[in-house]
């Protein structure tokens, strides 16, 4: 079992989820933070986890599933260790964001929403990450890379394991 690191030490994923559910049991409007945290624990939202959340928070499974599919942030399939989000917002669009996305697709060998076979990268697009002053740009995990040119994209990926 993969250990999930949290402040109280190493917990199994199941223990971390149980702790999370305890924390939010009587919290008004807690479903979205619970899903966000659960996704942090598992990397995505497996069906069994959604069922457990539905049961413990006493929300119908259909509603939990409805919330999951509504928001772009939630994923029902396993994802890569590193999330690449290429910005295709207005400012990036005007400055050639599409070519950055092409370079990223070529470098990783996957398309929009795709995950590399070794689970190292998942490639996504995003409508704007608010770094328009540095367009075209992309995010890898929580790091923003700006003023990109297609040639540089592949090199950036190399530093992420």
């Amino acid at each position: 079992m993969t250990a999930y690191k949290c402040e109280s030490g190493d917990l199994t994923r199941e223990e971390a989820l149980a702790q999370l559910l305890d924390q939010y049991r009587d919290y008004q409007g807690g479903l979205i933070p619970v899903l966000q945290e659960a996704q942090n624990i598992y990397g995505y939202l497996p069906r069994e986890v959604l069922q457990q959340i539905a049961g413990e928070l006493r929300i119908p499974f259909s509603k939990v599933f409805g919330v999951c599919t509504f928001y772009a942030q939630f994923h029902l399939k396993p994802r890569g260790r590193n999330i690449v989000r290429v910005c295709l917002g207005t400012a990036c669009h005007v400055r050639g964001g599409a070519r950055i996305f092409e370079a990223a697709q070529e470098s990783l060998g996957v398309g929009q929403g795709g995950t590399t076979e070794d689970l190292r990268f998942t490639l996504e697009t995003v409508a704007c990450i608010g770094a328009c002053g540095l367009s075209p740009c992309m995010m890898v995990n929580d790091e923003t890379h700006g003023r990109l040119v297609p040639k540089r994209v592949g090199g950036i990926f190399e530093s992420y394991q």
Partner: protein
Amino acid sequence: MKSLDQVRATYQEEYRHKTAKNRIVVGLGTCGIAAGGEKVMTAIKEQAAARGLDVAVDFTSCIGMCYREPVVEVAVAGAPSVIYGDIYPDKVEMLLESIENKTPVYEWAAMQIPNGAVPYEGIAIMDQSPYYQKQVRSVTSRLGRTNPESIVDYMATGGYEGIEKALKMDRMAVIDEVKKSGLRGRGGAGFPTGTKWNFVYGAHGDKKYAVCNADEGDPGAFMDRSVLEGDPHSVLEGMMIGGYAIGADEGYIYCRAEYPLAIKRLNLAIAQAEEHGLLGEDILGSGFNFTIKIKAGAGAFVCGEETALLNSIEGLRGMPRVRPPFPAIKGLFGKPTTLNNVETYANVPFIIRKGADWYAAMGTEKSKGSKVFCLTGKVNNTGLMEVPMGITLRDIIFSIGGGIQDGKAFKAVQSGGPSGGCIPAEHLDTPIDYESLGALGAIMGSGGLVVMDENTCMVDVAKFFLNFTQLESCGKCTPCREGTKRMLEILQKICDGKGEMADIDTLELLCRVIKGSSLCALGQTAPNPIATTLRYFRNEYEAHIKDHRCPAGVCSALLVYSVQADKCNGCGACRRACPAGAITGEKKAVHVIDTAVCIKCGACFQKCKFDAILRA
């Protein structure tokens, strides 16, 4: 009531002490970090230690000059502060030497702040520099100047004076002051903030909420991010004042998950405010209780719409509610709620501290105060700016923005994101306020301005926005769900060269219907990009349809590539680059493109060093 005077005096002393020493300040907003600011900061620390140089290293947020990031400020005690742009680790050594020599590095300096000392000659003074001359700095006054993670810096620069003053005032007097200032919602719609607060004040409920909309989703807008990253305490203080005025004891900030740094700094600021007894129970002994929670968004543009945002906080799908009842009567968890934008809240402490008259003196008759804009796209100086309402678009784009990149011609500026419209050159002298932008078919929006040059195809731009709204439509009401899809299909058809003139009439009809019948602002404003491009750039639509030609050379299906014989020297680079084998020609002889085989990928156009490939 307890006073903050003593704490403030201590902090002012601490701040004065800090800023009187030799110091280097690195801009670490998201943009500065993306440009490599953290590496620069590490290099400064290491090299300063190696030299044994007595210099304090601090960080701040984005001063607004995104085009010059990483930005570093060097302050030598008793001399003006010099702000440098484009500082990478290899330039750090020279900067440190400049402290030792007490002489700035003139060629890298962007501007200086005299701080009471005699200014250096040959470096623009910040207030008189082209970028800042026409700006005002009120909401953005701390951005790039103070450390956003330090409550000391905030309180030393007038922070939390507003809430202290407000708590001594009658609640209605606070609302009246905000009304008198003329402050209107900075999220886009421009509803008068004081009036909104008055509704919630008057609404019946055992509990009320103050909510901050930090779900800045418009592509091309990053004002809220910059304020949250650069001055998080001001947003908290604005919310406290709002909460006090309407009688709320709980606040929520709904922030995009795409802004991790903003969320981190907000959490820090909340913890600091709690430690100082500024959040929690019986604040400053006034009997007023207020707590603030952060909710991270989960990636849905429609959640920027107020009722969808409330649903999202409640843990539901972020779909808009039918109004009435308005959130002021029945909002979060069914209780009276005020919802205001980040920038709106950030204005409030200044209004309370400096007075409504000070604020109302800026701006136009109906739009008071200042507005923060983000200038992006094909303009030389991309970045954040705060300008008085009533300034013209020409001033923003050409004086502050420094004109169009590569000397190209200005074509249009897109104001207000996917809900806004494209404004052409003939309206560049329009003074910016809510009414005049509305009259042009655009909106003020949250403040994103994307500049487009002659190489931008307006049909393609309309298609880009429709693609966005179509993807982000929540699907609750039919006009938006189906209508945006139909409009996008028609635009795609036109860009593919298969359009008919009747399509323009259909688009105009759809624009009217969707605008008039959608449930929320996302749908009601979705046709704006089409309506304004049809209004100002109809000839481009007609060129696509009648002549099968894209005047800007963007729509790939309509392009024809050919070799200009007089410029081709037969190097063969295009022939090797062509993935379709459409280019033929002998070495050192003019090459030819077979248009029947050409897939219009543009590889030859990019490869040719002699501009011999013609794209038309």
